[in-house]
């Protein structure tokens, strides 16, 4: 048997996931629409005053983005489990952790990245000054990365569970709270015109930690779920 090199296997899985996602474009749009909707609720609920909205913009954008990215997490391994692809992945003889990284990366590309791209527009609508937009985008890119990697552990653990969506948020959201603290804080500091380097670096450190450790947990969880 000729074994595909692990790097190539990762790339193949990543491309397959993107291909499948782009075949179902309406599902691809759902998190982005959700993100826009939630953000729209806040001016309606609070006030149209941009000065007021600016004060809470960091927190609002971060919470809305996390919830939107969480939305697509539930199905991360479900389709694969139902049609037997998951068992094939387990039997493929490839390091499962690396495959988990590929899957996590695909999830981030499909949900995290669009949210990052849309966020500046929404931020401007909430009165965020243009100078803070970079900080917002970088913090959200790191934050959704953390969500994708930690979330894949939760998705792998709940893959066989009926109505696992609520359970998944219960498992994943407490783990995301540190990311929320630093991310929203970084955006808030940037909006006030302060340097947001500190919290951004801490966020990046957390992202690196999550990217290195979470795939191992995801692999273990997938093996358990497939038992």
């Amino acid at each position, binding site marked *: 048997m000729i074994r595909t090199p692990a790097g190539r296997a990762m790339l193949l899985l990543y491309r397959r996931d993107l291909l499948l996602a782009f075949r179902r474009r309406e599902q691809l749009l759902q998190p982005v629409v959700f993100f826009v909707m939630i953000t729209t609720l806040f001016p309606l609920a609070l006030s149209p005053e941009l000065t007021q909205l600016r004060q809470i913009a960091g927190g609002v954008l971060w919470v809305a983005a996390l919830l939107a990215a969480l939305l697509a997490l539930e199905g991360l391994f479900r389709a694969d489990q139902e049609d037997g692809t998951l068992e094939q992945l387990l039997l493929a003889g490839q390091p499962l952790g690396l495959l988990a990284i590929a899957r996590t990366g695909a999830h981030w590309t499909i949900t995290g990245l669009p949210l990052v791209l849309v966020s500046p527009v929404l931020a401007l609508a909430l009165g965020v000054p243009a100078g803070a937009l970079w900080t917002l985008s970088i913090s959200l890119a790191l934050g959704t990365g953390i969500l994708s990697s930690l979330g894949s552990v939760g998705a792998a653990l709940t893959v066989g*569970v009926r109505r696992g969506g609520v359970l998944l948020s219960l498992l994943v959201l407490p783990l995301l709270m540190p990311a929320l603290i630093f991310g929203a804080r970084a955006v808030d500091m940037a909006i006030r015109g302060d340097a947001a380097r500190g919290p951004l670096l801490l966020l990046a450190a957390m992202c690196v930690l999550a990217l290195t450790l979470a795939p191992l*947990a995801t692999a*273990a969880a997938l093996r358990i779920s497939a038992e």
Partner: protein
Amino acid sequence: MDWTWFHKLASPPHFYRIAGRLAPGLGWPALVLILAGLYGGLVFAPADFQQGDGFRILYVHAPSAWLSMFIYAMMAIAAGIGLIWRMKLAHAVAIAAAPIGAWFTFLALATGSLWGKPMWGTWWVWDARLTSELILLFLYLGFLALHASIDDTQRADRAAAVLALVGIVNLPIIHYSVYWWNTLHQGSTITKLGRPSITLDMLWPLLVMLVGFTLFFGAVLTRRVQAEVLRRERNAAWLRAELAR
């Protein structure tokens, strides 16, 4: 080093037999210590010069907060042992510890709130300690919910164990980020809670209570693990022999 005692303890039949004696052996000393701690804390210890008698809530708040964290760490270690060495008893310990830990986390929150009312003037303050206890409660509930939602016991054990390990890695990060967040947003608030100038006759009841609560946990845990073992091994031959006696 001779490890046979460990393997013996880890075997369900042996554990079940000694647990019947272990639970009261932990429970009665726990009762004595807690009663002594109550007397020391409520009667013997002088009132705090700043907080008056209100500081006495410390004697139930601090042991609860200690247990809430101790139990989570113990649960994660047990889960890890169960996962790595495929030890059935370790999984039973982890799942038996979780509800007790959740209750003590709830107690730490509730007594913290009761303490906060006279000290801060409100029932709830987003204080770093209370907030991390709240997140810890979510972690416990997630562990219990995940275990309950998977029907197959072995799979549920192993899945919940992975979650507990992910949780224990995250716990320090959560703890420090919450403290960082708190100092930034509430730097001006005087955190009187938990930092009374403590004297020796205030301290010993606290230590007695800490030990008493921990022994209490040991006793309740032993009973719960016994119940878990019974549930898991109900078809095993040794159990039939044990029960038929």
